[in-house]
């Protein structure tokens, strides 16, 4: 088995463990490249159809291309899809830096979707190599009261045995892509011909490397117009993936504070 085969087999294993362990369970679809790969893997894991609801936490601030992509593939992939509105900005912790507050609407959206549907499991497409606090995550990551991430006391996870026995009031974030890298994602997209939003491809010398809300997400200079170009570009670059996500960089602990309080 090569590297991509191995990554795929591990993710499918995780998804099947999660579906068995948590009911009800749902998946978050951010409409970015990673969560497209995640849906692709879920269709493989569950023999063609994603057997649980798929939510987009909608701030109303996605790019128009992103909404168009969403509507097309929600139908094409026969997803049980719901757009879930995020609570307004006034509800977000006012002490967070400005752009992190915008992202904070997503944290509230996560809490709200978990509470509304009494979810036991929520599948999200984060990766360890994106951001140092995400590198410390577990595959099955429990969130107790108020959806807090207690990074001081994470449960142990040995080999491929994931604990799933949590009391009521706890939901578990499931991370089937934790072990993938950005280049892995694009190489898999190339191998499997997985559709992604057009904003990832360069137009007039600029493209988006990481997709988020309008206003806090910025394009990078790039001439990569195809998936192959992107793979070549990433293999040479030393720029970090989330450089265009301003919320990460406002203060040293901005991202950690977001994550502790429920952000993905």
């Amino acid at each position, binding site marked *: *088995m*090569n*590297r*991509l*085969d*191995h990554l*795929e*087999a*591990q993710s*499918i*294993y995780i998804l*099947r*463990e999660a*579906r*068995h*362990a948590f*009911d*009800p369970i749902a998946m978050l679809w951010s409409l970015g490249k990673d969560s497209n790969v995640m849906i692709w893997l879920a*269709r*493989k*894991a*569950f*023999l*063609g*159809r994603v*057997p649980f*609801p798929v939510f987009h936490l909608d701030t109303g601030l996605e790019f128009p291309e992103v909404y168009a992509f969403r509507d097309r593939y929600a139908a094409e992939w026969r997803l*049980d899809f719901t757009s879930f509105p995020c609570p307004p900005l006034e509800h977000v912790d006012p002490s967070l830096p400005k752009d992190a507050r915008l992202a904070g609407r997503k944290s509230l959206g996560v809490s709200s979707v978990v509470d509304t*549907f009494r979810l036991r499991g929520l599948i999200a497409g984060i990766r*360890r*190599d994106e951001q*140092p*606090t995400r*590198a*410390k995550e577990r595959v099955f990551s429990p969130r107790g009261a108020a959806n807090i991430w207690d*990074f*001081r006391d*994470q*449960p*142990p*996870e*040995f*080999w491929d*045995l994931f*604990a799933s*026995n*949590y*009391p*009521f009031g706890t939901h578990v974030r499931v991370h089937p892509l934790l072990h993938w890298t950005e*280049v*892995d994602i694009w190489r898999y997209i190339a191998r499997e011909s997985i559709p992604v939003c057009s904003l990832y491809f360069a137009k007039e010398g600029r493209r988006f490397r990481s997709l988020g809300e309008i206003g806090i997400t910025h394009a990078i200079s790039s001439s990569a117009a195809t998936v192959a170009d992107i*793979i070549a570009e*990433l*293999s040479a670059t*030393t*720029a*970090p993936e989330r*450089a265009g996500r301003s919320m990460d960089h406002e203060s*040293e602990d901005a991202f*950690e504070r977001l994550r502790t309080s429920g952000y993905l």
Partner: protein
Amino acid sequence: MMLPGPKSTDDQAIPIVIVGHVDHGKSTLIARLVHDAGGFTDGKVAELQAVSDRRGTDFEWSFLLDALQVERDQAITVDSTQVRFALQGRQYLIIDAPGHHEFIRNMLTGASQAVGAVLVVDATQGLAEQTKHHVMLLKFLGHKQIIVVINKMDLVGFDQAAFAALSVSVNNYCSTSGIAVAASVPVSARHGDGLFSQSDRLAWYVGPTVAESLAMFSISPAPVDRPVRFPVQDVYRHGDQRILVGRLDSGCMAIGDQVVLCPTGRTATITGFFDENGLSSRTDAKAGESVAIALDHELFVERGHVAASVAAPPSLATLLKARVVWLDAEPLKAGAEYILRVGTATHVVLVDSINRLFDFDHQVDQITDAVHQYAVAEISLRTRVPVPIDPADDGAVLSRAMLLSGHRVVGACLLQSGERRAVVSSNLTAVIQSVSRDERAARNGYRGAVIWFTGLSGAGKSTLAMALQRELFDRRVGVYVLDGDNVRHGLNHDLGFNEADRLENLRRVAEVARLFADAGLIVITAFIAPTVGIRTLAREIVGAEFHEVYVDADLATCEARDTKGLYAKARRGEIKDFTGISSVWEPPMASDLAVPTSHQSIADSLGLLVDYVERRVLGARKVYDFSHFDGIEETS
């Protein structure tokens, strides 16, 4: 400095864990390795400089990995983390493991993912407590050889004699522990000496650099030539067919191959593989792949079963010898009950004995009746049903296990051996019923099932059980309630109320409930069932048609109600072993339904129950349970 290799290759990244005592410089070593391999992203150095300035320290390499505020403020690694770098065409996944005693569980989490280990030892400190502890844990995890890095050589003036003396003592310690030292490398991680190239200050050293020594680790190829082990994760339906899904741990499976299902011992032939498009064109599968298979005839198979080579099946054991690393603050005790996860199976186990305790100083054969937090011991576990295992088989999925207690992961286990002790007469052979469950279900319109209530005394179990029985009966459903009154006076009149008898009482209730459900009835049980162990046992006995319902009222509410005056008596000491007062109550961890009776009316609670039973027990089983969505059928 060597140049970094390509960032992506077809090969898997090689996972290597860095271990050692707190403050011996693990995080610094990793950050410096990544930096010198060209693996820092733009702006990272400036970012770490700013973080260091803010804390008034010199440039601190370890902040690359110690990303949490608490880690930076206290200069300590709390949780394991991972970074990657490429070197000469190989990609390494470096796992940083905390060195602090308090975070052993995180060290194990990281180390269990690694194929190789680097032990970092501070040249000024030598073998410290966690150095030894980590060596013992690496041995436990099955590591056979390690690289030793003697760090902070700058602080001993790059002295050759100091290095030689220390590396001899570390080597001796490791080899006594059963681990070979493949290389001992002197370095100063902070200044970069000895990592990628020989440094002038270490000119006397002739061995490999850290980077060169990493090349000795590699990922073993998937064990395709070994017997088939396919632990079943789940059973999905595809039209009329039942599909077994899981990841093939070892061996190869092809269409036409016969497999034996363990522990049932039935055999069947693989007829096809399924994927996202239905029946797949795939004709075989190899170790490491996650697949979905169909068999030639319908066997009873469920999660936890293992499809295996007919010629070389796993052993079936009811008495397991295991090495355990104990993680819980509450010590492991002989006679205690835990939950064992092995492969995809879950079993209730009893600690039969604690055989010996291992310690850093290699003294074995200590007699003990308890294993304390972070100690390593050999224990014997007893199971109720035979468990398929591959003991003492390095890396085999059926040799690795996890112990749980209530909601907590309490131990990691490696199974050493197993034997089967007969529990029932071997003269009993299973008789196949002339009417199948499916036939009964087809005639009745629903399958027999057990709705197992659990909750404190006074939570409302009997009231709700009786009300639910009435509702279902009125809908022409065959239903029966088992409770203390109708069981204690007849079937279990020989049992008292001590712990063993209470367990036996519920074991019999579960067996009877299973028979009634087999006969096609919906059985409701109304017992406290206070522990996770008891409920897991009941679930094991009943099997797939088991539904756990948590009748959820907290102790204060139940005690305030105290309809039978029992809590008052228990408080006065007139009733011994009263659940919630003087005997343990473990709230359910994974109930299929929770009915919160403290803050809603009986009618509302009943509504929840009826709704659940209609959808999940009587109706076609839906994939999930969101009432406001249109349910989609299982994939077809």
